[in-house]
């Protein structure tokens, strides 16, 4: 516990670097590369304006990181908090609602509301977050609900409550019912749009959480609680108070993130704000080494987990360019499976366990190959590359889809006219070919893996 990084965390750091380099290479505009050069070569703009995607990653990391720390603390203490997405929406909306209540005219007419109003609204929001955390702890420790159920209930309930409150208050204050509250106040929005405030906040909160978990009595007790609740109670430790603390920290951090998101999005949209974010937070914690069984995990690991997720998401966005947010769920899902499976692989392959044995193994190979086909085909139409112009000899390089490029090459199409008339045929052919290639490649890799593990299992048996 004395070292800041453990082995898995160095691994994660390495993985982040690999993703970064891969993105810089695969993205045909090499944005990362150019930003990096721009950062060091200097120029008229301040340094942070020369690395927009770096700044974007850092900012997104800060937002997700703030409430992922809360998720990690709850997970380490042996619980789970599914409610963060809704707590984000609820607290963001409540903050905006308070501002409407305190300064209805200013909020409506988009004039500044003044610092006291902002401070008061934020303070009230944090108090309410504390109450939400307390409510979770009460449901779990006194009523005896499993954490999953208790926080699932608030996940579903709070968003709807936020919407009801926003609609009612806007109707009462402005005379017109509105499902959202726009935020025009520049000072409030500065909280989020200035990059340094969220980032600094994140660094401070992460440092505090790290200190709490690794250096304090309470932190040790949280690990103990997650590891063995009964033994913790019988060691004369107030487990109920620890749970109370953990769920309050989680709710408070979600609320802070909620307030920032309202500033960033220039308004409180209770229906969409933070939708599904709870799973991103849990995913980041798990990728960062937290065990859902509790008692295992660190804050540096979680921070790296967040950074890794955001780097991968940004990397995919750089490579695909348009509509990359569609893929965010896919990315988070596969990153979680791969990250956790890798540790399982390492442990289990030592014991000679086979992952692709039997009928389920065969089907899994097929499954992975099909996934490869789908990913390949989707990539065909969505990944653009810079190539020599296939239609005009000697023309400057042009950008086109991978699928189009493959189709044009295979069908030997040499004029733009022909391509446009046969476009669908060309593009589909490209997709099929690419999908088949990626699928075959995945199948091949899995097949080789299977042979390796078979041989290794054999060796282990012989030992």
């Amino acid at each position, binding site marked *: 516990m004395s070292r800041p990084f453990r082995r898995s965390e160095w691994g994660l750091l390495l993985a982040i670097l690999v993703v970064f380099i891969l993105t810089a290479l695969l993205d045909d505009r090499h944005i990362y590369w150019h930003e990096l050069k721009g950062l060091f070569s200097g120029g008229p703009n301040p340094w942070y304006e020369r690395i927009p995607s770096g700044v974007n990653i850092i900012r997104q990391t800060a937002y997700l990181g703030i409430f992922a720390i809360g998720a990690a603390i709850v997970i380490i203490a042996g619980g789970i908090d599914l409610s963060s997405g809704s707590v984000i929406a609820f607290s963001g909306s409540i903050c905006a609602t308070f501002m409407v209540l305190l300064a209805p005219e200013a909020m409506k007419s988009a004039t500044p509301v003044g610092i006291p109003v902002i401070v008061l609204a934020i303070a009230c929001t944090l108090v309410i977050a504390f109450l939400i955390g307390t409510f979770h702890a009460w449901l779990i420790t006194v009523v005896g609900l499993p954490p999953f159920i208790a926080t699932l209930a608030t996940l579903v309930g709070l968003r709807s409550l936020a919407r009801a409150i926003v609609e009612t208050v806007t109707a009462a204050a402005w005379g017109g019912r509105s499902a959202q509250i726009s935020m025009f106040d520049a000072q409030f929005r500065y909280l989020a749009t200035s990059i340094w405030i969220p980032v600094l906040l994140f660094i401070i909160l992460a440092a505090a959480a790290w200190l709490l978990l690794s250096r304090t*009595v309470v932190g*040790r007790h949280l690990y103990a609680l997650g590891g063995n609740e009964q033994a913790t109670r019988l060691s*004369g430790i107030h487990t109920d108070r620890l749970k109370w603390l953990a769920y309050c920290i989680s709710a408070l951090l979600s609320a802070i993130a909620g307030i920032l998101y309202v500033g960033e999005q220039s308004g409180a949209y209770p229906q969409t704000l933070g939708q599904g974010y709870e799973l991103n937070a849990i995913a980041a914690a798990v990728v960062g080494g937290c065990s859902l069984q509790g008692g295992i995990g660190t804050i540096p690991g979680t921070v790296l987990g967040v950074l890794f997720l955001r780097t991968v998401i940004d990397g995919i966005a750089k490579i695909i360019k348009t509509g990359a947010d569609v893929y965010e769920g896919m990315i988070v899902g596969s990153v979680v499976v791969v990250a956790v499976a890798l540790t399982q692989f390492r442990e289990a392959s*030592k014991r000679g366990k086979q992952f692709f044995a039997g009928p389920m193994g065969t089907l899994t190979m097929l499954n992975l190959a099909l996934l490869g086909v789908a990913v390949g085909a989707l990539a065909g139409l969505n990944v653009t590359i810079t190539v020599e112009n296939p239609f005009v000899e000697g023309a400057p390089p042009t950008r086109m889809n991978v699928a189009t490029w493959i189709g044009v090459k295979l069908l030997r199409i040499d004029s733009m006219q022909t391509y446009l008339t046969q476009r669908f045929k060309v593009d589909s052919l490209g997709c099929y070919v690419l999908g088949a290639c990626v699928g075959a490649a995945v199948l091949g890799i899995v097949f080789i893996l299977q042979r390796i593990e078979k041989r290794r299992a054999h060796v282990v048996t012989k030992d």
Partner: protein
Amino acid sequence: MISIEHITKRFPGVTALCDVDMEIAEGELHAVVGENGAGKSTLMKILSGVITDFDGRLVLRGQPVRFQDTRDAEEAGISIIHQELNLVEQLSAAANIFLGREKRNALGLLDDRAMERSARGLLAQLECQIDPQQVVRELRVGDQQLVEIAKALSLESGILIMDEPTSALTESEVARLYRVIARLRERGVTILYISHKMDEVFRLADRITVLRDGKKVKTLARSQTNSREVTHLMVGREIEAVNFSDDRRAGAVVLEVRNLSLAWTGHARGWRLRNINFQLHRGEILGIAGLMGAGRTELLECLFGSSPETPTGRILLEGREMKFTHAAEAKRAGIGLVTEDRKRLGLFAQMTVEENVTICALRDAARGGIVRRRQERLLADSMVNKLAVKTAGVDAPVISLSGGNQQKAIIGRWLLTKPKVLLLDDPTRGVDVGAKAELYRLMHQLCREGLGIILTSSELPELLTLCDRILVLCEGRLTAELARHEATEQRIMEAATMRNEEKSSAP
């Protein structure tokens, strides 16, 4: 009947079995003894098909066999009753007995009635009144074990392996188990009996094989050896007979219990504990005897403030009345509890030795809530040295320690809170002979330093060796208080089963 030839099994880092040879004759009861970690369980897992990758070979009735899984072993007529029972707690007794071999009717649906009928027959053979429809979770441990034995009977196994079958049983259940074993032997079943309790082994076994550090030491006929020799072979050194002469002097009363009762809502008896009165002195070891379910653990929980329901009556610590609502208050007042079931209730398996030792007293090593590393290390080192915990270092994971040393670490955890009273709930369960003697000496030493100790144990000889006085509980009532010179196994057993006399004498 079975020959085990040159069996070697290596795990990463350790050789669990090294070139073990053994012969088991048809119809005998062959005991396999050894300290924890001697390789007994590994050998049994190989015989029952749980472990399939090993060197050497098994010969069964003259045929070399190689089991691929437990089902192969069962088909060859070998079943095993594990120390940790392998039952599905949510299913009925009958469903457990036929798990994996369910009887089906003409439509291919489960035929519960037929299974319950056969289960009832099997259980009747074991002279027990278990309802086959009863869910296993609701059965007592002893009855659960009988369900396992019934399962082995239903397989018509010729060879039955029992891995420390009495470790969770009360004396009366042990007696019943002995009768069941006798009955099985009449039917010609060969039994391999794993244990480290000498009295059992000498009562039951025809031959005894001693394992030590993964090697076979010797196979002896029972008639040609004695428990002293076997213990010596197991441990590899002479165990000095522990002699706790009366150099302990009881001091002032440290803990007094008056009319302590604990309700049991929803149970016919109505109470878990009823009108318990006793005193504990400084520098005294007070034993609590009783069958399982007599209320030993409940009594300790009441004293420690960790019982789910609040007891009535008075608990006085050094003359001051205490009303504990949480273990934290008991800890602050100077009471410590070393729980039974170390793995489930005591150990933090993912933590180091140091973290396990300091968990109760971490605030002593902290300033302003921040743990001072050096201070924590000093606390951990002091206990590891004082209790002679054998560990590669205080940074080692606690699960790398042997059972006895884990128990020492947990005792150390409580000593750091500077308790006035230490409650020990069956502290030597699952601890091997050598480590037991060390724990005895440790308790004796702590007692001489003026600590008041309350000890429960499922082994009467242990209480008789260690305690200055013994309280006997029966169905939640205190039925005897015996001074050291009055206490004998027989008197304790009489007091522990007093309910029967009372019932028969009642009109």
